[in-house]
């Protein structure tokens, strides 16, 4: 029985093929499809982990003012 296509892979691959297909050979598109399959697997591993509402992205954003210095608590300091 033929394997059921993974709709997420099909959809995401279609996005890439639609955007860049005119630059790519059939072999390259095949490779990209495999990569998209890998990416979907990778995302599944992430989605399987539950996070709390309070688990924020590990990236620091600080409001910016050009007249702020790090010492005064402003500016883009980590």
């Amino acid at each position, binding site marked *: 029985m033929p394997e059921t296509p993974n709709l997420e892979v099909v959809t*995401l*691959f279609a*996005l*890439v093929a639609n*955007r*860049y297909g005119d*630059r*790519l050979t059939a072999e*390259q598109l095949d*490779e*990209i499809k495999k*990569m*998209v399959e*890998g*990416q979907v697997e*990778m*995302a599944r*591993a*992430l*989605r*399987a*982990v539950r*996070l709390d509402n309070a*688990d*924020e*992205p*590990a*990236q620091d954003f600080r409001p910016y003012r050009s007249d702020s210095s*790090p010492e005064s608590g402003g*500016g*883009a*300091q*980590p």
Partner: protein
Amino acid sequence: MSADLLFKPVRELAALVRARKLSPVELAEFHLGRLERLGPKYNAVVTVTRERALSQARRAEGEIAAGRYRGVLHGIPYGAKDLLATADAPTTWGAAPYRDQRFDFDATVIRKLEDAGAVLCAKLAMIELAGGMGYRQPTASFTGPCINPWDTGVWTGGSSSGSGAAVAAGLVPFAIGSETWGSILSPAGYCGLAGLRPTYGRVSRHGAMALCWTLDKLGPLALTADDCGLVLEAIAGPDAADPTASERPYRYETAERRGFRFGLISDVTDGCEEAVVENFRRSLAELGEIGTIEEVKLPDLPYEQITRIILQVEAVSAFEDLIGSGRIAELTAPEDHFTPYAREAILAHDYLKAVRLRGVMAREVDRVISRYDARVAPGRINEAPRLGQEFRSAIRSTAKDVMGAAGNGAGLPAVCVPNGVGARGLPTSLQFMGRAWEENRVLDAART
């Protein structure tokens, strides 16, 4: 003179320079000659900076003669991975589309090394765009594959390939490399060198090519772990031009090599070559003489997927112009011509989940690692790959590297040192990874 200078650690060269038994100009000439003569043999060099080197060396010689000794790097030659901007030479990022690129300033690391009196002799070859486009084989550089001085049929590792080859071939006493995931530890491990990946934010990235803003680190490759510490002290520190550069002060200090607590991840040798496992066992026996070794289990998290997704998304964003314009087709490696397109299919939701999980990973890894001075593991899973073959890589999911994923994802320091040779007579290596900002402790453990 020449035979005496070859493969001398920075600390020994510095003692000779300080005592005025060794002229910085003669030392620079010696290494410039080797770079010009042997650099092409290893595809290790992009630009020999002869004029700048001799100017810096003459200044060092004059200052030392006048009693103004700046420190251990004064008058010591080095090379820099060609992703560091310099005002007086092209900065190619190892990639054909950027082969004529010029900047009108020096990267902060280059400036700090100049302040320390070091002598820039060459800009060194690297994998194109630091490997961020998904390369699979050693030829992915417009200067050709970097050849390992241990065996001209094998690769140096990457992406700081020229930095590895140049130090291993005695072309320079130390070099600066960069690591996003594995790019310092890989060439250090394959070339039988010490390589230090500092804590993220320890060293300013200003003037360095951005591959992944939240993962990129700059650090030294040298003959010894001790030399890595000496170089780190010169390049570490805050920088107004890089908001991620930490205010935390760093001073390289050594302590006695005893009383260590080492953590060992239970399945860390899975997938390693037999000789790597054997040499690792021997290293553990030796480490048992200076400390305790305890098996640890990391909490169950998708470490590799977290770091991989962040790397892949940041890399395509950093080079969106090159990718969008189709000019990635000008890159050297055929796989780099199309791999980045696939990454545009990674969903924002999944990327952000990875960034949220990264915080959990950083906390969990610190909770486990805080009980130890260092976690130990083989530096590489194998001896250096042959030049003509595809290599395995955790970034592409074709190899396992939980230590690298957790270490780079959480921004932790690690040092890699040689620990023997394998079945093909090539170096194998050992890595020590520590808590954030604990470079001195891992260097203590790695020092011989």
